[in-house]
């Protein structure tokens, strides 16, 4: 157990953070200037951490593979960000956010971390507003809120369907200010390809300049990995094309433990796959479930008629529709957590009620709220006592447009169908990964000086993340956690002079990176990188996706091992190393995804229970709900790599002192 000390402070849950925060050693301003911090990744976690650490006086370097820090994939988050402000006076509180998050995560997250997250959530909104983030507002000028899944309060702040964009641009503006002041040095179009450990501590990174292809060595007293999640292991996901596991995986291969890799979030509302050419999937925000009702036809003959193009969704009369979420979960209805909603869609589609040609789609329908909720509201405001159906539709459309306009436009672009007229078709898709590098309460991995923030770590969402909590966690880690907790380590480092990068460890690590690049070009095989990535993705989706079982996972592990072997014999990487070479970048990332895929399956196989996003078919209740095994699996599975394909499991027991664990129910 010595390897996994979570360092949760003593004391009552609501005082842990306040007390701990005020006892963390400080670093005086003169010393901060000499302490260098490397931040890898420029999304919400990375940008906010870099800006804040630079404001405090540390010397910061930021690396991102995109051409600008503003393009990190946080930019694509749509629906919103949670905060326990209780502006709606609907009974929200820090405790309730804490409770909802632990329950939503199916009792597989750490109490201490989650409570801290809930405590700082309010400050995030304050900070963002102060930066000029244009959140949605009411006519009185105050901030507007909406509901997200897994909660019964309205605590989600938003900026149309582009909340991630606005929050990231806020953090990016803070980062830019520090770049302009010379406190941050920005390295865009740079990809981290390894970490450098010296005497057991992380002391820097090897990065590749993606334009010139040159490998660079960078020293840091501490290194922060803010590199997001690994959903692209499935090939098709809502992640950006470039999103990858490489930074985290390199750290893992150098000794950092990887926790709960099998916890994957499959988001219920994405645009269905249209064909083999598909390169990525597009999310339709969870906020749509505020006003959209999910259903499939009750009758098989209606399903047949829809698939054959003889009927449209809007032709099916009310009594022949199965609003299966409202039917199965009357208390939460369409706003059940993502894992529950996704499985329910799969259940209906597997039973043969899918409404598109592939049989893998359900309806998300706005018609009734558009007309009878918003249309009526507007009619009342306008003083129209007996509005016609057409008027209701017209009025309602305006309101829906203001709330979700960009999402509706995006849907129309992609599918060619107008969701104002016919119900949207949606299906679950890989969206987020709750697993990640194991970190303690300070967000430090088990390698001293190496931290992981945001989606890259594992700590706050347990086995399922609630909607609008990813933005909250990224910014909490970057703005309000790491600026304090890093002091615990750096205060001991004030005597460490910058280590020259001609030191042996830097040279050796760079050589290993160079050798791997040379190896890619030497193979001169016959298959593209994408060929292998697609094959891997298909296996992961089918055997380690929404439903998993022992037999399938064992088969997948063997298959993935074969893919790995073939990849290193037959991949073709065109071009040269010393130039802008996107295929080389992909090869590097996919090689790591293949190794990760195997670990995910092993983790899923090890966890003989169902919890949150991890659903083992062998372990379900009679009603088809996830069946946890708290006796045997109430732990964090942290994997230590011995060599490729061989891991050792370490367990961190989860202790619940404040929340009584129970069978999760949304009925």
């Amino acid at each position, binding site marked *: 157990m010595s390897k996994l000390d979570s360092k949760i402070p003593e004391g009552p849950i609501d005082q842990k953070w306040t007390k701990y925060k005020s006892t963390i050693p400080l670093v005086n301003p003169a010393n901060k200037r000499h302490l260098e911090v490397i931040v890898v990744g420029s999304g919400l976690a990375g940008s*906010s951490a870099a800006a804040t650490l630079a404001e405090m006086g540390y010397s910061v370097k930021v690396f991102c593979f995109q051409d600008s820090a503003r393009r990190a*994939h946080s930019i694509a988050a749509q629906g919103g960000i949670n905060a326990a402000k209780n502006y709606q006076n609907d009974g929200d509180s820090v405790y309730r956010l804490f409770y909802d998050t632990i329950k939503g995560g199916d009792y597989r997250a750490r109490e201490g971390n989650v409570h801290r997250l809930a405590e700082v959530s309010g400050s995030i909104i304050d900070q963002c507003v*102060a930066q000029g983030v244009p959140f949605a507002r009411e006519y009185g*000028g105050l901030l507007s809120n909406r509901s997200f899944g897994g909660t019964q309060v309205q605590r989600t702040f938003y900026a149309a369907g582009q909340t991630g964009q606005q929050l990231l641009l806020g953090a990016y503006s803070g980062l830019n200010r520090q770049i*302009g002041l010379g406190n941050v040095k920005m390295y865009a179009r740079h990809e981290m390809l390894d970490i450098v450990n010296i005497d057991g501590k992380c002391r820097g990174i090897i990065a590749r300049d993606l334009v010139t292809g040159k490998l660079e060595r960078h020293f840091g007293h501490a290194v922060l990995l803010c590199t997001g999640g690994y959903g692209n292991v499935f090939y098709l996901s809502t992640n*950006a094309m470039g999103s990858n596991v490489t930074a985290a995986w390199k750290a893992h291969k150098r000794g950092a433990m990887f926790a709960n890799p099998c916890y994957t979030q499959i988001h219920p509302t994405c645009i269905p796959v249209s064909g083999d050419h598909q390169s990525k999937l597009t999310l339709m925000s969870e906020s749509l479930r505020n006003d959209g009702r999910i259903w499939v036809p009750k009758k098989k003959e209606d399903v047949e008629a829809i698939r054959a193009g003889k009927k449209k969704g809007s032709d099916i009369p009310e009594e022949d529709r199965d609003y299966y979420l409202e039917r199965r979960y009357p208390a939460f209805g369409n706003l059940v957590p993502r894992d529950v909603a996704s499985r329910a869609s799969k259940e209906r589609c597997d039973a043969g009620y899918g409404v598109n040609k592939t049989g893998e789609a359900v309806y998300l329908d706005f018609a009734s709220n558009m007309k009878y909720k918003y249309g009526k509201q507007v009619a009342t405001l306008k003083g129209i006592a007996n509005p016609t159906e057409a008027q209701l539709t017209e009025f309602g459309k305006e309101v829906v447009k203001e709330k979700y306009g960009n999402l509706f436009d*995006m849907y129309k672009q992609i599918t*060619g169908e107008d969701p104002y007229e016919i119900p949207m078709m949606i299906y679950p898709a890989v969206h987020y990964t709750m697993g990640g590098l194991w970190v303690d309460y300070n967000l430090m991995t088990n390698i001293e000086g190496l931290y992981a923030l945001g989606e890259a770590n594992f700590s706050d969402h347990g086995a399922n993340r609630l909607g609008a909590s990813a933005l909250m966690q990224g910014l909490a880690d970057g703005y309000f956690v790491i600026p304090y907790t890093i002091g615990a380590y750096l205060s001991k480092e004030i005597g460490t002079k910058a280590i020259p990068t001609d030191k042996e460890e830097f040279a050796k690590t760079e050589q290993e990176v160079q050798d791997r690049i040379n190896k890619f070009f030497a193979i001169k095989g016959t298959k593209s990188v994408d060929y292998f990535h697609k094959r891997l993705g298909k296996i992961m989706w089918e055997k380690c996706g929404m439903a998993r079982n022992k037999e399938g996972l064992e088969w997948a592990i063997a298959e993935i091992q074969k893919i790995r072997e073939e990849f290193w014999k037959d991949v073709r990487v065109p071009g040269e190393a010393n130039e802008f070479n996107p295929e080389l970048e992909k090869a590097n990332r996919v090689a790591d995804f293949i190794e990760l895929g195997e670990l995910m399956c092993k983790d899923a196989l090890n966890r003989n229970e169902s919890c949150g996003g991890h659903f083992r078919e062998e372990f379900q209740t009679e009603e088809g709900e996830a069946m946890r095994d708290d006796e045997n699996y109430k732990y964090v599975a942290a994997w230590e790599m011995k060599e490729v394909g061989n891991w050792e499991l370490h367990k961190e027991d989860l202790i619940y002192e404040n929340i009584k664990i129970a069978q999760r129910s949304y009925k």
Partner: protein
Amino acid sequence: MNLTLKVWRQKNTNDKGKFETYKAENISPDMSFLEMFDVVNERLIVEGKEPIAFDHDCREGICGSCSMYINGRPHGPNNGVTTCQLHMRSFKDGDIIVVEPWRSAAFPVIKDLAVDRSSFDRIQAAGGFVSVNTGNAQDANNLPIPKNDADESFAAAACIGCGACVAACKNSSAMLFVGAKVTQFALLPQGKPEATQRVLAMVNQMDAEGFGSCTNTGACSAECPKEISLSVIARMNREYLSAQLFAE
């Protein structure tokens, strides 16, 4: 669908570059423009040729990476759409499609269709922020902002920084981009104390990067995938003029 592509190929910034012709065969109308490029690249790789380099990432129209100049228009034939959201159903079987990178002195070509837009970041670093340190904020609802101002500010802040405005402009002006950022802050009470320095610093940096001036043609706004209004330029000019008058 079967299509003919004429694509700009340029090995690096210093290379002269030229058009190459490629066939894109068996293209589904449901593919996005970039998925069509994936198909072409996959074939080039298998044939042992160099695939076409282009910037792309989110493929859902928000990151601003993709930057193709298609048949003489940034992001292609449709309005209000980025290249990644452009689908092949917007083209006809047998079409010849010409694809170029953004053309502007301030956006040097890195390779093929990928250009260097770091000038945009430097403009932001010059003044595109509110000078507030983490941890100093008052309660968010202590600062009520009229809904219309917040909405208009948001509409300007929706800019994705792709650079289509510059590519569309005969003068390679970046005033729609800079105007959008200036407008976002000009409409909000936050950051008012530094409004003067902000607009002067951003405009000076824009000029230093080699972007041209605005002659009110409006191509920028017409081609903007986020349909940023031309009025942001007017607002920036007003802010700039008043800053010049009142600057110390």
